[in-house]
């Protein structure tokens, strides 16, 4: 039985199309990041958050009218249901908050305070720094690990795929002006770690094929490897996306943006491991003029 016979799709032939799609999405995201930036949540920008539940249904306009009495009409008001609201304001102290709450009670209806968050600018700056350190640490750690385990060009394309996934998540969050909170950074970090899984599966298979199918041209080997791994790539992605969707739909509003970031990251990650990472190896060989035809390319510390 010849495994080449199982070849179904030609990923190499159509790789330019895949590059264009990715580049366009990333460019749109980058333009959004540069021109409208991120909607930083209070974790990073500082400020106050108030989640309240009124006894009766109340409109966003009514809530805003009360807030404008306190010069806080610029606040973000998100209604989770007809009587539950998340209000983000500039940093207010507990005295101001008390006054606002009693104004709500007087002008609208009685309410319950579900959540209060206040983050001062010092803490916000600090968290920003920590988030950047965490991302750098994870990136460098993973780069070192794959460089150690794979040969150089494999780790380069993995890192490109990884950056691709992160940029898409961050770009879409900027585009939709979704709030960047600590949870979103956690989601991006998870994607950094997880999106490599599928890339590793395919690259591992490629390395094996390079060893055993020495007569195939390199481009075919890549195609074969992607096709051989296709059903597991799709299934592992699906099984991860299913709980993420459950989280999005049932997990409540605090986790829904977190789940959304993971979802986008998973889609981008699966796409990049199939359409971007391994096909980029062809480009690598072209650039460095390597005619890889059955050259033995093995893992550095392969015992076999």
């Amino acid at each position: 039985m010849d495994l080449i016979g199982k070849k179904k799709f030609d990923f190499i032939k159509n790789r330019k199309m895949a590059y264009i799609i990715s580049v366009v999405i990333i460019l749109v995201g980058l333009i959004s990041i540069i021109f409208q930036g991120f909607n930083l949540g209070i974790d990073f920008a500082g400020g106050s958050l108030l989640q309240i539940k009124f006894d009766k249904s109340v409109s966003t306009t009514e809530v805003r009218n009360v807030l404008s009495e306190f010069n806080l009409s610029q606040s973000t008001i998100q209604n989770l249901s007809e009587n539950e609201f998340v209000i983000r304001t500039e940093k207010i102290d507990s005295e101001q908050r008390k006054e606002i709450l009693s104004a709500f009670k007087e002008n609208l209806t009685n309410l319950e305070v579900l959540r209060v968050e206040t983050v001062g600018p010092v803490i916000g700056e600090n968290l920003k720094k920590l988030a950047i350190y965490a991302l750098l640490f994870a990136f460098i750690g993973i780069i070192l690990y794959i460089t150690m385990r794979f040969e150089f060009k494999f780790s380069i394309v993995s890192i490109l795929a990884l950056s691709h996934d992160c940029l898409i998540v961050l770009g879409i969050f900027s585009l939709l002006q979704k709030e960047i909170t600590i949870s979103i950074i956690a989601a991006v970090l998870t994607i950094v770690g997880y999106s490599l899984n599928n890339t590793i599966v395919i690259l591992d298979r490629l390395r094996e094929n390079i060893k055993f199918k020495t007569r195939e041209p390199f481009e075919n080997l890549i195609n074969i490897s992607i096709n051989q791994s296709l059903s597991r790539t799709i299934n592992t992605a699906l099984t991860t996306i299913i709980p993420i969707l459950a989280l999005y739909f049932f997990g409540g509003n605090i986790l829904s943006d977190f789940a959304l970031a993971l979802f986008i990251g998973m889609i981008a990650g699966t796409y990049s491991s199939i359409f971007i990472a391994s096909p980029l190896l062809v480009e690598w060989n072209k650039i460095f003029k390597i005619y890889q035809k059955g050259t033995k390319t093995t893992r550095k510390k392969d015992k076999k």
Partner: protein
Amino acid sequence: MNWTKTLRVASVFVVIFIAIILSFPLNEKINLGLDLQGGSHVILECVDTPNAPVDNDAVNRVLEIIRNRIDQLGVSEPVIQRQGATRILVQLPGVEDPETAVDLIGKTALLEFKNEEGETELTGAHLINAKSSFDQFSRSIVLIEFDKIGAKEFGEATKNNVGKVLAITLDGKEISAPVVQEPILDGKAQITGKFTVDSAKHLALLLRSGALPVKVEILENRSVGPTLGRDSISKGIKAGIAGLILILIFMLIYYKGFGLIADFALVVCMILIVGALAGLKATLTLPGIAGMILTIGMAVDANILIFERIKEELRLEKTFRASIDAGFNKAFRTIFDANVTTLIAALALFYFGSGAIKGFAVTLSIGILASMFTAIVVTKIVLEVVAAKFSSKALL
């Protein structure tokens, strides 16, 4: 079944058994984070003012006074820690009214008596007791008592202001402006403001614990009411169960007999995660629940890689047993590499994350380790046992 295999099966059961023992009863063994049980996470900073510069001694006294206030509030298992030179971390789990609690902690609570010219006649520095009570019109009042020196000062102050207003202020805000009828010499007084029962109680508490020696600012406050905490738990459980059931069904439909084994491994994995959380006394937060749900999906990945490999080996017309061994051997490295990268990201989160996010890093890391263990050990043993009894056709 040979001896080594029996031993391996037995050890897997022992591990599962230990995990169950560790996590039972669930509600006692799993520590819930502030975001799930309700409560407050507050970071305070002592700040310099011209009159009261911050020094080490002042911060320690602030710590002491805050501890005193929290004790009097009756919070069980609070965390009160000094962080660095000028910061204090306070965590109050399970408080019914986090807002008021945080309010009480950060108040300077400087009591002053001011004459009509606005000059301070004396402060609350020499108070020895304060308690809330009711006057003859059943209005809430606060009764205060000075020590000897205070009584003398208070006597002077009242003597000097007979027939005039002697305003009582807290942190510069007037709470009462009584007219002094006659000098009070026994050092006992009552404050009749516009109190509710609660606000009188709180004022008495603040006065008893004394004023903070320096100004304290709230740098960060994250408070969750008990309703939202309970709601988060039930939503988390709902999402988890939905995710778990969908995955169990998916695996069963797609991988049939193999899927059943993966489902078994997944359930074992979940038991191990809960057991590890309980055993390590880790705190489960809302992001932590999200991490567990995410693990449900990641845990079956290794099984999928293994099964697909075994299927390939079977296609090469190897025996079932030989295919299992080859499948595991070839999938192992991939599984290992893929999990290490996720673990690196989780570690980064653990080091640099704060509060609730650390909970996510913890469950994710435990989840990755547990899923690797179940895939490589549990799945393998089950497959070996099954391979001895059934042909591979029965599973596909």
